[in-house]
């Protein structure tokens, strides 16, 4: 369980990354509020929606990890392997964010984004249920950092642990996102870039810890035997 506080901290630090993509959404959500109290309410509901999605992803990843452990446990320790894979993924994301390595991105913007119509409607609609749904769908946006932690959740091999891990990450991103949504520009662009770099190194450290844990346990056999997953059969 030592991973949860670390993941929460990674979430807090990583929120400077979130502002790049999701900050404008939080501001849009805030623009529909009558006063600052209503706005805080909307921001909290928006965040809960986001964290709900993360937790579901974490639970699914945890279950998938569990399933993998059942399938390959006779040969290797799947949890350890997943931890190494997750660690490598986080390391890669961290190095990308820290700009140690670079990647030629595919021309994503050339492909028309059909989901935009769907998502934008919830962002701009009044009503708290729409705010919640906007948060729910924000959680589904492609994000390297989220993928990294989903991989970590899979390595937990546990539904509840996976959900908890992703929820911890989601709640870690909450403070800065809520403040941003309330209109506070707490951090200047320069400061944000600085913190972004610190966050990147934090992700790198998380990845390294995960790899170290995985390599430490790689030779242990699996813990469970079970029937197949109804989703994967």
């Amino acid at each position, binding site marked *: 369980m030592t991973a949860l506080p670390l993941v929460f901290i990674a979430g807090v630090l990583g929120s400077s*990354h979130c*502002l*790049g*993509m999701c*900050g*404008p959404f939080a*501001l849009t959500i805030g623009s529909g509020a009558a006063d600052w109290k209503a706005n805080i309410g909307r921001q909290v509901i928006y965040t809960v929606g986001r964290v*709900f*999605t993360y937790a*579901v992803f974490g*639970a*699914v990843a945890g*279950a998938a990890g*569990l399933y993998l452990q*059942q399938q390959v446990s006779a040969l290797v320790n799947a949890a350890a392997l997943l931890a190494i894979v997750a660690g490598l993924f986080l390391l890669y994301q961290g190095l*990308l*964010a820290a*700009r140690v390595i670079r990647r*030629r*991105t595919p*021309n*994503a*913007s*050339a*492909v*028309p*984004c*059909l*989901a*935009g119509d*769907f*998502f*934008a*409607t*919830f962002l*701009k*609609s*009044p*009503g708290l*249920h*729409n705010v919640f*749904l906007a948060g*729910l*769908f924000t959680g589904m*946006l492609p994000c390297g950092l989220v993928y990294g932690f989903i991989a970590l959740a899979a390595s937990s091999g546990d*539904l509840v642990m996976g*959900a908890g891990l992703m929820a911890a990450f989601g709640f870690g991103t909450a403070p800065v996102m809520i403040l*941003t949504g309330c209109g506070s520009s707490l951090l200047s*662009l320069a400061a*944000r*870039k600085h913190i972004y770099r610190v966050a990147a190194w934090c992700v790198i450290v998380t990845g390294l810890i995960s790899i170290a844990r995985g390599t430490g346990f790689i030779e242990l056999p699996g813990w*469970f*035997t*079970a*029937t197949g*997953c*109804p*989703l*994967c*059969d």
Partner: protein
Amino acid sequence: MTSDAHDHSGCDYCGLPVAASPSSSDTPQFCCFGCRVASAIANESGEEGRNRWTLTRLGLAIFFTMNVMVFTLALWSWDVYRSDAALSSRSASALFELFRYLSMLLSSIVVLMLGGPLLENAYENLRRRIVTTDLLIVAGVVAALIYSFSSVLTGGRHTYFEVACMVLVGVTLGRWLEAVGKLRTTNALRSLEKLLPESARVVARIANPSGAPWDGFAVRATEEESVLLDDIEVGHIIRVLPGERIAADGVIRRGQAAVDEKIVTGESTPSIKEAGDQVYAGALNQDGDLLVEVTAPPRGGALLRIIDAVTAAATAKSRLQTTADRIAGWFVPGVVVIALATFAVHTSIAGIGDGLMAALAVLLIACPCALGIATPLAVWAAVGRASSAGVLFRHGDALQQLAAARVICFDKTGTLTSGEPIVDQFIAEPGEPADDVLRAALMLAASSTHAFSSAIRKHAFARLDVTSIPYPTELETRPGRGVVAKLNHSSGAIYLGSLALMEDAGLQRSPSMREAIVGVCQAGKSLVCIGWDGNVRGVFSFREQFRNEAQSSLDGLHAAGFHVAILTGDHAARTASIERALGIAVEAELMPEQKLAAIRDLRHKYGPVVMVGDGINDAPALAEADVGIAMGCGADVSREAADVCLLGDNLEQVGWSIDLAKRTMRTVRQNLFWAFSYNGIGILLAAAGLLNPVWAAVAMVGSSLFVISNSLRLSKSEDCERQAAERAEQQISDSSVSSCPIFPESGSASSTL
């Protein structure tokens, strides 16, 4: 495009053809379930966003489905953990029993939310006697639910609530995204119609009865009346201010302005229009205050004829589409048989639950939605993209034929050449000052509008230092021969014109002039002579002027591997120089029927032939060719002989159109290949019981999204693609601020937070 404005039997949402005509024209008709949902969402969005229940319903259904998924996974992991003593306690059992009931409750809500519209659509289709896989999917979902309900209530082990929820969400979301994608492919057409202003300033309701000059017509602001577009009638005088678009086709009665008519005539530079000139609806008045007498109803003008032509082209079913439809028609009964067989086999082997799941997976993965939109989406996107570039395809088949073309034939005059001659050579009588002869020719040419006079004027202005041109007296135009005039009353007559005019006037030719004239005639060039006082004093020869882009366009087509030929009725001697200049085979002195024979011959030798002409004097050749391309159609898009109309006269658009056609057919082939292989492999897997219906639902959405995004790439202009590539470069160089995949611009906006 609104369906009431144009009478074609298309879907009320996306405009694509509807499978069968409805019993009543009052009820809205939709081509698919997605358009029904999307239309409901669009209508609700119109109500100031207060009542967006359809979309909210979909969103909430996704939320409940996520819950059901987690409960299902928890139930599954209970199976895994059951050996653990702590978890097999009574409280754990109670908790997981609660999860089963919660799954039942939440999936019931999902079914109530999403099942209704799907059932309604299936019922509508049944009424039209169309059996769709949607109906079967609904049946499968209901069966899965009944099984799961009885399982929960009777203490059975397996439930399939997550399958029912995921299938409903997958089908609804997938169909809705399809509808939005289809709508986007028609955006180019919609943007054409948006060029018409919603209303116009009407300053008078009848045409000037007395026929008095309009300069005397005083217009005061108070006399103006804003009239909605549909209420404008023929005979109204409308006022168009600078920066406004003209609401209806008409004739300028007062004022002068630079008018940008690119959208209608394809002419990229604005032309100066003044009283008496024709103007078209949608054209932009750049800088003048115009009074225009409306000559055509606002929805009957040139622009709307263009839109109708393009709409007709897009909605007419191409041969490829007909083939795909025929296959899809066999698909549904085939799939039903496979699904029933799968159900029977798996039920006998592993029980009714597995049988049901395998059959449902077959139905989902076999859903021919990707197959159905593979061709029309690509054709819509390409036809719309072409129309915004000033290229009108008259039917979708033209794209297919153009992509298959091997030979491109060009008409010469007016197609490769601008149709305006230029002076090739000017030879003056030896001993006569050449500039004086040219000055005399300029004086006469300045008084004539003939194309040769215009060429002589240009030549003289380029060669002489002209400050003023003396105005001749006793000017006389002799039709078909030339002009005769005097410098002043006491001087002798000067003749400018054909050899026949010189002979009529009894002008003598010196040996050197005779030699020059023979040389010009042997070269097959046109000839104009000038003479006075009994002698011919100079000879002009002319040649046709190639369009600026002719050489590069022909080179491009050559390089792309096409056999390029020029078919012309011109004199062989005259075309020899063209053959040399362009390096292209020219078949000269062809009568119209010989042109047809030449096209047949080329088709026999090389393959499908494209004929490019001006669409007027070479209409038979355009009709004979596999694809006829008419240039410079302008507002006259009704040239029936041409399969493709270029609004402007830019030759480069020929190559561009062929390239677009090839890209379109490549996209169609990719789409069809994808759809067939996806369905084929998917059905095999599902029938073997190797595919869970949840994954089948996800794959169904993914497959349609592939086809949609692949087709939409065609509707993007090259400029857009270039800008997108530049943006991607920019992202790489500044990756610290992520860009948003939903709102690409929001990434940069965030930097100002």
